[in-house]
């Protein structure tokens, strides 16, 4: 019975999330949106790099930052997809209270609502990778890809991001709707610490432990290794660690982050119910 509620919560929420994400415009504009946004985001870094290095795209540093940025798009997508659901349902559709009183598993409902953003995020990642491969000669060799490592890392990473999204959803339950997407903002902040666009060695020594504590750091490193192993090896940050070591560390840090997220969400959930915030309106 509990399993069917959980599954039903997830599936119906996924359906709902897709309905909401996909019906706001015609397919042409949707496609334009889905292509321009990720390419513009990548374009900023490409241009920055190109200006300084005179277009030296053969340097492993370029592949490092390009791939890191490409996959990093999952971070705001999943974090926002899950946390924004609270705002959308509470303040826009005003259905959050009805979801709460229904026999629905709330965390799974939130994960389900994030699925649509994950799908559009995947599209963005794919577009960025393709553009890099075709136009900027990012050295991805299909025959050299470590597919098992790639798929395992991707799956672990998405679950990890979903749990982090739950943490943000908890915060959103007890805070007002401000002008930003909390998921996007947090993702942009974590950009600094996760070695997405530069190796952790570039950071001052006292900031690096933050990066080492974040599961996203290991996730990105594993994705780089699985796609362009030789590029990843050019940077000293994790050369001492094997793929298995990294997978285990990713798993461990994800579990810790996940437990913190679940605990924090429960606390915020309880606080929101206690203070009557489930149906609050905070538009200002």
């Amino acid at each position, binding site marked *: 019975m509990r399993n069917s509620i959980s599954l039903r919560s997830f599936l119906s929420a996924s359906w709902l999330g897709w309905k*909401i994400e996909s*019906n*706001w*415009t015609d397919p042409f*504009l949707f496609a*334009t*949106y889905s292509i*321009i*946004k990720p390419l*513009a*985001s990548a*374009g*900023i*870094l490409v*241009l*920055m*790099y*190109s*200006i*300084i*290095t005179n277009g030296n795209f053969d340097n492993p*540093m370029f592949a490092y*930052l390009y791939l890191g940025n490409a996959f990093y798009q999952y971070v705001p997508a999943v974090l926002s997809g899950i946390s924004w659901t609270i705002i959308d349902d509470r*303040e*826009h559709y005003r259905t959050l209270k009805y979801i709460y009183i229904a026999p629905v598993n709330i965390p799974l409902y939130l994960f389900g609502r994030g699925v649509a953003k994950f799908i559009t995020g995947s599209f963005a990642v794919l577009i960025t990778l393709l553009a890099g491969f075709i136009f900027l000669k990012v050295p991805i060799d299909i025959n050299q890809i470590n597919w098992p490592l790639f798929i395992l890392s991707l799956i672990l990473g998405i679950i990890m991001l979903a749990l982090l999204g739950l943490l943000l959803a908890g*915060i959103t339950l007890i*805070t*007002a*709707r*401000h*002008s*930003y997407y*909390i998921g996007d*903002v*947090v993702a*942009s*902040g*974590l*950009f*600094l*610490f996760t070695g*997405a*666009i*530069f*190796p952790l060695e*570039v*950071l001052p020594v006292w900031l690096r432990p933050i990066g080492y504590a974040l599961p996203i750091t290991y996730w990105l490193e594993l994705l780089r290794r699985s796609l362009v192993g030789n590029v990843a090896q050019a940077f000293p940050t994790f050369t001492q660690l094997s793929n298995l070591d990294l997978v285990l560390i990713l798993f461990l840090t994800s579990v810790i982050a996940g437990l913190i997220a679940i605990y924090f969400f429960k606390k915020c959930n309880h606080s929101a119910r206690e203070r009557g915030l489930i149906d609050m*309106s*905070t*538009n*200002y």
Partner: protein
Amino acid sequence: MLPPIQLTQKHSGIRLFIMTVFGRAYPRVIGMQREKSWLFFDIFVPLLSVSAYVFVYRAIGAPEDYVGFVVVGGAMTAFWMNILWSMSSQLYWEKEQGNLALYIISPASMMAILLGMALGGLFATLLRAITIMVFGSLIFNVSYHLVSFWQLIAIFSLSMIALYGMGMMSASIFLLLSREAWHISNLATEPVYLISGMYFPVKNLGFWGSAFGSIIPLTLGLDAIRQLIFESGPSLGFLSVNIEIFILILLSVFYVSAAKFLLAYIEKLAVREGRLTENRR
């Protein structure tokens, strides 16, 4: 029972405009006082985000002035975000909540409402911009080389006028569209960062790329500010500061006038098509 208020006792014209601006700014100011989570997410976290781009430049061995470019670009982002999300897109929420209908049926001007929204958010915007400038400059040892204080003030002021005029113009789209406009604003974020040279001298987009980017007042504003405060600024500038000031004056006049016209025109269109009170998607 209270005595009736005659129409003549109610203010109109400029006085009503100012009252409306302050009236609408009030919820913004108070809302931010009563719920302070934005201090972390809207002030501290963007500083981290800007720092990420600084470290990218450091990782690839960029000249130190580029660090300054990022800091200044990051600071100016605050104003762009204020316009896009606290002003234009806010109309989406107002429509959903039913406030838009009440604004329309009141004698208050929509420009005043929008200006009030922007003004109310200005405290947070300024705080964000100053935080990034001050802390970014201190942490990353950015050195400045001010050429002309008055030109700097002129550039900043004109950029703001043009930018807010543009924001009001785009707000009119929210009268007609709903969620599409919200998503279009979302779409606009990164492309605007790209074509406005937020983190790099816009000159590197080529003449036509830079010219296209100059549609966004932020582009020329940033370019001119960089020329005025960084030693290598003039060599990396797109056009001379005086030309950029002149273009910004034209853009200011154009955007503010266009905003007035478009707000009125699109409101009429929305009234005709019944879009002001619908809840679509």
